[in-house]
Protein backbone atom coordinates (compact mmCIF):
# COMPACT_ATOMS: atom_id res chain seq x y z
CA UNK A 1 0.00 0.00 0.00
CA UNK A 2 1.00 3.64 -0.32
CA UNK A 3 0.56 6.01 2.60
CA UNK A 4 0.60 9.78 2.26
CA UNK A 5 2.58 11.33 5.11
CA UNK A 6 1.94 14.98 5.98
CA UNK A 7 4.86 17.17 7.02
CA UNK A 8 4.61 20.52 8.79
CA UNK A 9 6.69 23.51 9.83
CA UNK A 10 10.36 22.68 10.45
CA UNK A 11 9.94 19.12 9.15
CA UNK A 12 8.38 20.33 5.91
CA UNK A 13 11.24 22.82 5.54
CA UNK A 14 13.82 20.13 6.32
CA UNK A 15 12.57 17.83 3.54
CA UNK A 16 11.54 20.63 1.19
CA UNK A 17 7.98 19.32 0.83
CA UNK A 18 4.76 19.00 2.77
CA UNK A 19 3.76 15.47 1.76
CA UNK A 20 5.61 12.23 1.12
CA UNK A 21 4.10 9.20 -0.64
CA UNK A 22 5.52 6.19 1.19
CA UNK A 23 5.23 2.61 -0.10
CA UNK A 24 4.71 0.26 2.86
CA UNK A 25 3.94 -3.45 3.30
CA UNK A 26 0.50 -4.40 4.64
CA UNK A 27 0.56 -4.49 8.43
CA UNK A 28 3.18 -1.74 8.62
CA UNK A 29 3.25 0.26 11.84
CA UNK A 30 3.82 3.91 12.69
CA UNK A 31 7.39 2.89 13.52
CA UNK A 32 7.75 1.55 9.96
CA UNK A 33 6.49 4.90 8.63
CA UNK A 34 9.20 6.70 10.59
CA UNK A 35 11.88 4.28 9.39
CA UNK A 36 10.59 4.57 5.83
CA UNK A 37 10.80 8.36 5.95
CA UNK A 38 14.47 8.11 6.88
CA UNK A 39 15.18 6.15 3.71
CA UNK A 40 13.65 8.53 1.17
CA UNK A 41 16.02 10.48 -1.02
CA UNK A 42 17.54 13.45 0.80
CA UNK A 43 15.90 12.70 4.13
CA UNK A 44 18.85 11.12 5.90
CA UNK A 45 19.75 13.14 8.94
CA UNK A 46 17.11 15.80 8.34
CA UNK A 47 14.48 14.66 10.82
CA UNK A 48 14.96 13.77 14.48
CA UNK A 49 15.23 10.11 15.40
CA UNK A 50 11.82 9.70 16.98
CA UNK A 51 9.33 12.36 15.98
CA UNK A 52 5.74 12.42 17.21
CA UNK A 53 3.31 10.92 14.72
CA UNK A 54 -0.44 11.35 14.36
CA UNK A 55 -2.76 8.92 12.58
CA UNK A 56 -6.16 10.24 11.56
CA UNK A 57 -5.53 13.42 13.55
CA UNK A 58 -4.74 11.71 16.85
CA UNK A 59 -1.33 11.12 18.40
CA UNK A 60 -0.27 7.50 17.76
CA UNK A 61 2.20 5.11 19.35
CA UNK A 62 4.91 3.54 17.20
CA UNK A 63 3.32 0.09 17.38
CA UNK A 64 -0.01 1.26 15.94
CA UNK A 65 -0.78 -0.45 12.60
CA UNK A 66 -1.28 1.88 9.63
CA UNK A 67 -3.99 1.13 7.08
CA UNK A 68 -4.42 2.30 3.49
CA UNK A 69 -6.28 5.60 3.50
CA UNK A 70 -5.10 6.61 6.97
CA UNK A 71 -4.06 10.25 7.35
CA UNK A 72 -0.54 10.04 8.77
CA UNK A 73 1.34 13.14 9.91
CA UNK A 74 4.75 13.74 11.45
CA UNK A 75 4.40 16.36 14.18
CA UNK A 76 7.28 18.71 15.06
CA UNK A 77 7.48 19.92 18.67
CA UNK A 78 4.33 22.01 19.06
CA UNK A 79 4.65 25.70 19.89
CA UNK A 80 1.15 27.16 19.94
CA UNK A 81 -0.09 29.80 22.30
Amino acid sequence: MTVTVLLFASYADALGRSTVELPLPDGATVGDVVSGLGRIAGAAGRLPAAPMVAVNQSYASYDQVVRAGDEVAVIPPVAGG
Partner: protein
Amino acid sequence: MRVALVRRPIDAAALLAEVAGDECGATTLFVGTVRDVNDGRGVTGIDYTAYDAMALREMEAIANEASERYGTPHVVIEHRLGTLAVREASVVVAVSHARRAPALDASRYVIEELKRRVPIWKREHYLDGTREWVDPTGRGTAEAARTSGVAALSAPTPDPRPAVGVSEESRL
Protein backbone atom coordinates in the same frame (compact mmCIF):
# COMPACT_ATOMS: atom_id res chain seq x y z
CA MET B 1 -18.23 26.00 24.18
CA ARG B 2 -16.45 26.95 20.98
CA VAL B 3 -12.97 26.63 19.51
CA ALA B 4 -11.63 28.28 16.38
CA LEU B 5 -8.55 28.91 14.29
CA VAL B 6 -8.76 32.40 12.83
CA ARG B 7 -6.75 34.39 10.32
CA ARG B 8 -7.77 37.83 11.58
CA PRO B 9 -7.22 39.69 14.88
CA ILE B 10 -8.92 38.07 17.88
CA ASP B 11 -11.60 40.20 19.53
CA ALA B 12 -10.97 39.54 23.21
CA ALA B 13 -13.93 41.64 24.35
CA ALA B 14 -16.25 39.61 22.13
CA LEU B 15 -15.03 36.39 23.72
CA LEU B 16 -15.58 37.88 27.16
CA ALA B 17 -19.19 38.61 26.20
CA GLU B 18 -19.58 35.19 24.61
CA VAL B 19 -18.87 33.27 27.83
CA ALA B 20 -21.07 35.48 30.01
CA GLY B 21 -23.88 33.80 31.90
CA ASP B 22 -26.34 34.88 34.58
CA GLU B 23 -25.06 32.11 36.85
CA CYS B 24 -21.41 33.14 36.43
CA GLY B 25 -19.59 35.11 39.10
CA ALA B 26 -16.12 34.87 37.58
CA THR B 27 -14.79 35.23 34.07
CA THR B 28 -11.16 34.80 33.14
CA LEU B 29 -9.44 35.76 29.95
CA PHE B 30 -5.99 34.52 29.04
CA VAL B 31 -4.36 36.35 26.14
CA GLY B 32 -1.12 35.13 24.61
CA THR B 33 0.71 37.89 22.76
CA VAL B 34 3.81 38.20 20.61
CA ARG B 35 6.64 39.63 22.67
CA ASP B 36 9.66 41.46 21.43
CA VAL B 37 12.29 39.19 22.98
CA ASN B 38 12.64 35.41 23.20
CA ASP B 39 15.68 33.67 24.66
CA GLY B 40 17.51 36.96 24.52
CA ARG B 41 16.92 37.56 20.80
CA GLY B 42 14.98 40.53 19.49
CA VAL B 43 11.75 39.39 17.84
CA THR B 44 9.83 41.48 15.31
CA GLY B 45 7.00 39.07 14.51
CA ILE B 46 5.87 35.45 14.42
CA ASP B 47 4.38 33.23 11.71
CA TYR B 48 1.87 30.79 13.15
CA THR B 49 0.96 27.69 11.18
CA ALA B 50 -1.07 24.62 12.10
CA TYR B 51 -2.19 21.16 11.16
CA ASP B 52 -5.63 22.72 11.07
CA ALA B 53 -7.91 19.70 11.27
CA MET B 54 -5.98 18.03 14.08
CA ALA B 55 -5.44 21.32 15.93
CA LEU B 56 -9.20 21.90 15.99
CA ARG B 57 -9.79 18.36 17.26
CA GLU B 58 -7.28 18.81 20.06
CA MET B 59 -8.66 22.24 20.95
CA GLU B 60 -12.16 20.76 21.09
CA ALA B 61 -10.93 17.91 23.27
CA ILE B 62 -9.23 20.37 25.63
CA ALA B 63 -12.32 22.57 25.86
CA ASN B 64 -14.42 19.48 26.62
CA GLU B 65 -11.96 18.29 29.26
CA ALA B 66 -11.89 21.71 30.93
CA SER B 67 -15.67 21.89 30.82
CA GLU B 68 -16.06 18.49 32.49
CA ARG B 69 -13.24 18.80 35.00
CA TYR B 70 -14.20 22.25 36.21
CA GLY B 71 -17.92 22.11 35.65
CA THR B 72 -18.80 24.88 33.24
CA PRO B 73 -20.03 24.96 29.64
CA HIS B 74 -18.55 28.44 29.15
CA VAL B 75 -15.18 27.76 27.51
CA VAL B 76 -14.06 29.47 24.31
CA ILE B 77 -10.66 29.19 22.64
CA GLU B 78 -9.49 31.13 19.59
CA HIS B 79 -6.02 30.75 18.13
CA ARG B 80 -4.81 32.99 15.36
CA LEU B 81 -2.71 31.81 12.40
CA GLY B 82 -0.63 33.83 9.96
CA THR B 83 1.95 36.52 10.57
CA LEU B 84 1.57 38.53 13.77
CA ALA B 85 3.39 41.64 14.97
CA VAL B 86 4.66 42.30 18.49
CA ARG B 87 1.75 42.82 20.95
CA GLU B 88 -0.78 41.05 18.71
CA ALA B 89 -2.76 38.24 20.35
CA SER B 90 -2.04 34.73 19.12
CA VAL B 91 -4.46 32.99 21.46
CA VAL B 92 -7.34 33.94 23.71
CA VAL B 93 -8.93 31.60 26.24
CA ALA B 94 -12.19 32.74 27.87
CA VAL B 95 -13.82 30.84 30.71
CA SER B 96 -16.63 31.74 33.04
CA HIS B 97 -17.94 29.89 36.05
CA ALA B 98 -20.10 30.43 39.09
CA ARG B 99 -16.94 30.51 41.24
CA ARG B 100 -13.55 32.07 40.75
CA ALA B 101 -11.30 29.15 41.71
CA PRO B 102 -12.54 26.74 39.02
CA ALA B 103 -12.65 29.59 36.48
CA LEU B 104 -8.97 30.31 37.11
CA ASP B 105 -8.08 26.61 37.18
CA ALA B 106 -9.91 25.92 33.93
CA SER B 107 -8.18 28.83 32.22
CA ARG B 108 -4.78 27.52 33.26
CA TYR B 109 -5.68 23.96 32.27
CA VAL B 110 -6.66 25.09 28.77
CA ILE B 111 -3.56 27.14 28.04
CA GLU B 112 -1.17 24.51 29.45
CA GLU B 113 -2.80 21.70 27.47
CA LEU B 114 -2.95 23.86 24.36
CA LYS B 115 0.78 24.48 24.52
CA ARG B 116 1.46 20.80 25.13
CA ARG B 117 -0.79 19.07 22.60
CA VAL B 118 -2.19 21.30 19.87
CA PRO B 119 -0.25 20.99 16.59
CA ILE B 120 0.50 24.65 16.00
CA TRP B 121 3.98 25.93 15.23
CA LYS B 122 5.63 29.29 15.22
CA ARG B 123 8.51 30.74 13.28
CA GLU B 124 10.00 33.81 14.89
CA HIS B 125 11.32 36.74 12.87
CA TYR B 126 14.44 38.21 14.45
CA LEU B 127 15.84 41.70 14.37
CA ASP B 128 18.75 40.47 12.25
CA GLY B 129 16.33 39.37 9.50
CA THR B 130 16.58 35.63 10.17
CA ARG B 131 13.58 33.38 10.91
CA GLU B 132 13.51 30.21 12.96
CA TRP B 133 10.99 27.59 14.01
CA VAL B 134 10.61 27.55 17.77
CA ASP B 135 11.19 24.27 19.59
CA PRO B 136 9.91 24.63 23.15
CA THR B 137 11.22 21.18 24.04
CA GLY B 138 14.74 22.53 23.77
CA ARG B 139 15.74 19.33 21.99
CA GLY B 140 16.77 21.36 18.99
CA THR B 141 15.24 21.74 15.58
CA ALA B 142 15.64 19.17 12.86
CA GLU B 143 18.28 21.46 11.40
CA ALA B 144 20.15 21.62 14.69
CA ALA B 145 19.96 17.85 15.03
CA ARG B 146 21.30 17.46 11.50
CA THR B 147 24.21 19.81 11.85
CA SER B 148 25.20 18.36 15.22
CA GLY B 149 25.21 14.89 13.67
CA VAL B 150 22.38 13.44 15.72
CA ALA B 151 21.35 10.29 13.89
CA ALA B 152 18.05 10.29 12.06
CA LEU B 153 15.11 8.01 12.36
CA SER B 154 16.95 5.10 13.86
CA ALA B 155 15.55 4.77 17.36
CA PRO B 156 11.78 4.51 17.28
CA THR B 157 11.19 5.52 20.88
CA PRO B 158 8.75 8.40 20.51
CA ASP B 159 7.36 10.59 23.16
CA PRO B 160 4.43 8.58 24.48
CA ARG B 161 0.99 10.06 23.94
CA PRO B 162 0.96 12.64 26.73
CA ALA B 163 -1.39 11.63 29.51
CA VAL B 164 -4.20 14.05 30.14
CA GLY B 165 -3.73 15.65 33.51
CA VAL B 166 0.04 15.90 33.59
CA SER B 167 -0.13 19.65 33.46
CA GLU B 168 -2.59 19.74 36.30
CA GLU B 169 -0.20 17.77 38.46
CA SER B 170 2.62 20.05 37.48
CA ARG B 171 0.64 22.95 38.81
CA LEU B 172 0.56 21.52 42.33
